[in-house]
């Protein structure tokens, strides 16, 4: 069967396997990690849209993550809104704030843009830390309500896994729609050659802002999902270190495609668990990974794998006859 149908079959099989996962694996800690991986996949896919597709450096993911988490937690605890709506509001607010901060920021590039995004993340964290009674300050917010849909409460990790799985599938479908569309192509032309893009009528700044706006929703939704999974949030979770971790996942897995952020999320999360006993050395290792990826695998694991696959099926160079043939398809 052809490639497209083969991919579809693989996806269906994968989703089926994932559906069976909580029934087979009953260790709640492993389920927790798996669910977190799903949340990271959502956040990182949003990050990928900004970094991988529109070519902008961003270190403010933790900020979106925090906005989504706190917004959803607070709305669910202080208003009567159903949790699912609170989550969506969390995503929307993060998206909106992302757009606002992006507007003056996208004229900057590289280090300078990185600084602004770091500032964004840090300011959000500091606001949470100094938010007094509203945000619980350093103590955070405990007893965040569980998600309930149609009377069914997702109060175990196993049940919540399905929620996150569903969210991942939806958000990835949206991402694929976007990156294959004219806006997705517009992002990539801004990334590859912004001057040429401008010459072809693209509003480069507006597109860059759009990328951040979309990332905001993904990050915020991820944060909201996190809040109602763990039931407790505090500023300690939403640090620059977390942003760097997210970026590392996308860099390692590969940016600018569907599978890279997924692979990166899985690998780094597993690495994180495995390397726990090493303590401080862990972050040094992530630093080394970042440098190593930039030096040896700038397109990440997925990039390296795809290049190998392409090399196997390399096309033959055009013959002179073909070069002179301007009549039709060869």
């Amino acid at each position, binding site marked *: 069967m052809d490639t497209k149908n083969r991919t579809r079959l693989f996806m269906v099989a994968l989703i089926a396997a994932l559906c069976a996962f909580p029934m087979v694996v009953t260790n709640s800690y492993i389920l927790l990690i798996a669910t977190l991986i799903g949340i990271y996949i959502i956040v990182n896919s949003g990050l990928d849209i900004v970094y991988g597709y529109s070519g902008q450096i961003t270190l403010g993911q933790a900020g979106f993550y925090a906005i989504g988490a706190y917004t959803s937690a607070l709305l669910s605890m202080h208003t009567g809104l159903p949790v699912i709506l609170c989550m969506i509001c969390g995503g929307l607010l993060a998206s909106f704030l992302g757009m606002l901060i992006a507007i003056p920021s*996208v004229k*900057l*590039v590289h280090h300078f843009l990185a600084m602004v995004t770091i500032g964004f993340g840090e300011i959000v964290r500091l606001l949470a830390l100094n938010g007094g009674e509203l945000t619980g300050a350093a103590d955070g917010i405990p007893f965040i309500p569980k998600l309930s849909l149609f009377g069914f409460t997702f109060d175990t990790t196993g049940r919540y896994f399905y929620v996150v799985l569903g969210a991942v599938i939806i958000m990835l479908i949206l991402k694929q729609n976007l990156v294959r569309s004219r806006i997705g192509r517009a992002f990539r032309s801004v990334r590859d050659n912004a001057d040429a893009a401008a010459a072809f009528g693209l509003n480069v700044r507006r597109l860059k802002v759009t990328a951040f706006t979309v990332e905001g929703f993904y990050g915020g939704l991820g944060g909201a999902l996190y809040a109602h999974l763990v039931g407790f949030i505090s500023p300690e979770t939403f640090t620059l270190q977390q942003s760097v971790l997210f970026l590392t996942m996308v860099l390692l897995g590969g940016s600018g495609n569907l599978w890279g952020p997924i692979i990166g999320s899985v690998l780094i999360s597993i690495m994180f668990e495995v390397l726990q006993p090493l303590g401080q050395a862990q972050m040094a290792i992530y630093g080394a990974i970042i440098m190593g990826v930039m030096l040896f695998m700038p397109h990440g694991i997925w990039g390296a794998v795809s290049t190998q696959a392409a090399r196997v099926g390399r096309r033959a160079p055009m013959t002179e006859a073909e070069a002179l043939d301007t009549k039709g398809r060869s």
Partner: protein
Amino acid sequence: MQFFIQLAAGGLMVGAIYALVGMGYSLIYRASGLLTFAQGEYFMLGAFGIYTFFVLFDLPYPIAVIAVLLTMVGVGFASEKLLIGPLLRRGAGPIHIVIATIGLSIFLLNTAMMIWGSQGFHVPSTLGDMPVRIADVYLVPQNMAIVVIMFALMIALHIFMNKSRLGTTLRAAAQDKMAAAALGINVSLAVGLTWGIAVGLAGAAGLLIAPIYGVSAHMGLLVGLKGFAAAVIGGYGSIYGAVVGGLLVGLVETFTSGYIDSTMKDVIVFAFLLAVLFFKPTGLLANDMLED
């Protein structure tokens, strides 16, 4: 009034530190058109350097200083040769370089924690810890020395870059690699040396500040940020701009501390940086390209 002068003096002295680090940022940008995230960590390493050589190994102070400076220049050179240079040769874009230096700074920070631990250390001052009173203002000798050294280094750097043969060589290599190579200049060596000097500046700042504020693994983060702010505010790429920017940042910080609240000082400095980035990214002084 006396309070004002005291604060101003303090601001200039702390600003001198930011100026030194900022000069390094601008120098690297001048030399290679590149941006780096790691200056703060080099600053921290300079401080740990003086702690290691002066306190742990008990070397005489001048020897320890020379050892630290040579080490830092070597580290800068190595950074360029092992990381930046190879990246550029593989066709890495600016964004990859920035990310790589982010990785480098994380690596250096955490490695330092592994080597020396995460507590703070003390380095005694060779000039004495007692403040000296000059015209109604109390100044710590070490602080004054820093300002003097900073200006001296700024002038020395200017003379070196513009008047000496080696300095002119470095500038030539920075402006046009191919032309420089055609003239027989060892471009690779020149770029490496420039990075060495820039890192050396940060390291010098670290070793100078160590007796005043102590040494700890995280000391580089804020200083790196403020040094970057200094470079941006003064006009990224300008050595004099970095000095002006550094002093300005120092003044903003101490006046915020003195008149508003010391917990706000970092936020205010950061807000200042963001304001400059948003409204006048080319800096308050010079003209340079850092936008799209």
